[in-house]
């Protein structure tokens, strides 16, 4: 059961990520990214992180991706133009990606003592998580809330239309 779930959702994850690269319309890429994030939530659940699975669906697949699709539709982003990209990306980027993946795979396959994930063990309850979050890590948690507040204010300030913009857009 565990194996089937893992293979199914790992496959969905990879398929979604590859589809994100292949699609030329941003909205299709955004929908594939939602597939990737939702499959990752299932994988978190298989690893016993139940709170993170819920947060992944609510925060990432929900809030963040709604923001993405909203901006894509607001800006009416069309099909992207296919260009070859920069020369640096082709000559340095792709070999570097292959090398990084090869190194990571080699290191991962040689790690000794890596365990296995089963359905029974290692489930972190939300209670355990919140106990640490609200006692030992209370200050970082509150700082994060201030960070999000600043981010909201910054987003509003950035996206707000300046005074000169209205006439310039009308003139176009």
């Amino acid at each position, binding site marked *: *059961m*565990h*194996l089937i779930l*893992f293979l199914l959702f790992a496959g969905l994850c*990879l398929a979604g*990520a*590859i589809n*994100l*690269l292949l699609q030329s319309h*941003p909205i299709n*890429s*955004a929908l594939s*990214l939602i597939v990737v994030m939702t499959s990752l939530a299932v*994988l*978190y659940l*298989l*690893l016993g*992180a139940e*709170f*993170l699975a819920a*947060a992944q669906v609510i*925060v*990432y697949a929900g*809030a*963040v991706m709604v923001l*993405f699709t909203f*901006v*894509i539709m607001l*800006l009416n*982003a069309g099909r*992207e*133009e296919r260009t070859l*990209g920069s020369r640096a*990306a082709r000559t340095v*980027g*792709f070999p570097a*990606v292959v090398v*990084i*993946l090869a190194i*990571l795979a080699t290191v*991962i*396959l040689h*790690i000794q003592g*890596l*365990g*296995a*994930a089963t359905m029974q063990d290692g489930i*972190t309850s939300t209670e355990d*998580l919140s106990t*640490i*979050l609200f006692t030992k890590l209370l200050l*970082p948690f509150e700082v994060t809330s201030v*960070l*999000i507040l600043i*981010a909201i204010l*910054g*987003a509003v300030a*950035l*996206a707000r239309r300046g005074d000169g913009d209205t006439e310039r857009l009308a003139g*176009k």
Partner: protein
Amino acid sequence: MNPAPLQLAAHGIPLAWYLLLSAALFSLGVIGFLIKRNVITVFMSIELMLNAVNLTFVTFAHQWHAVKGQIFVFFVMMVAAAEAAVGLAIIIAIFRARATLAVDRIDLMKL
């Protein structure tokens, strides 16, 4: 290295598979960052990389039965949400100024 499926059903999925999946997702994110020409899709590739790293954190949290890894993922998620809000606001501002989303045309700061 690859146990038979029956063994897997009894002993669970090796955590190395999760790590390999995470490495593959991260590499796909880097490739997307390099080949995509739309600034929103480039931004989505960055989100994909963040998610891949989160999977690694959760895997190691499971390996050591530690909650700290999951706490880290929680903070990464919160910062990523803030980052997405600010980043998309910047994209809206860029679109308003340049009327394009193609990264090839947004090259004012390029040498």
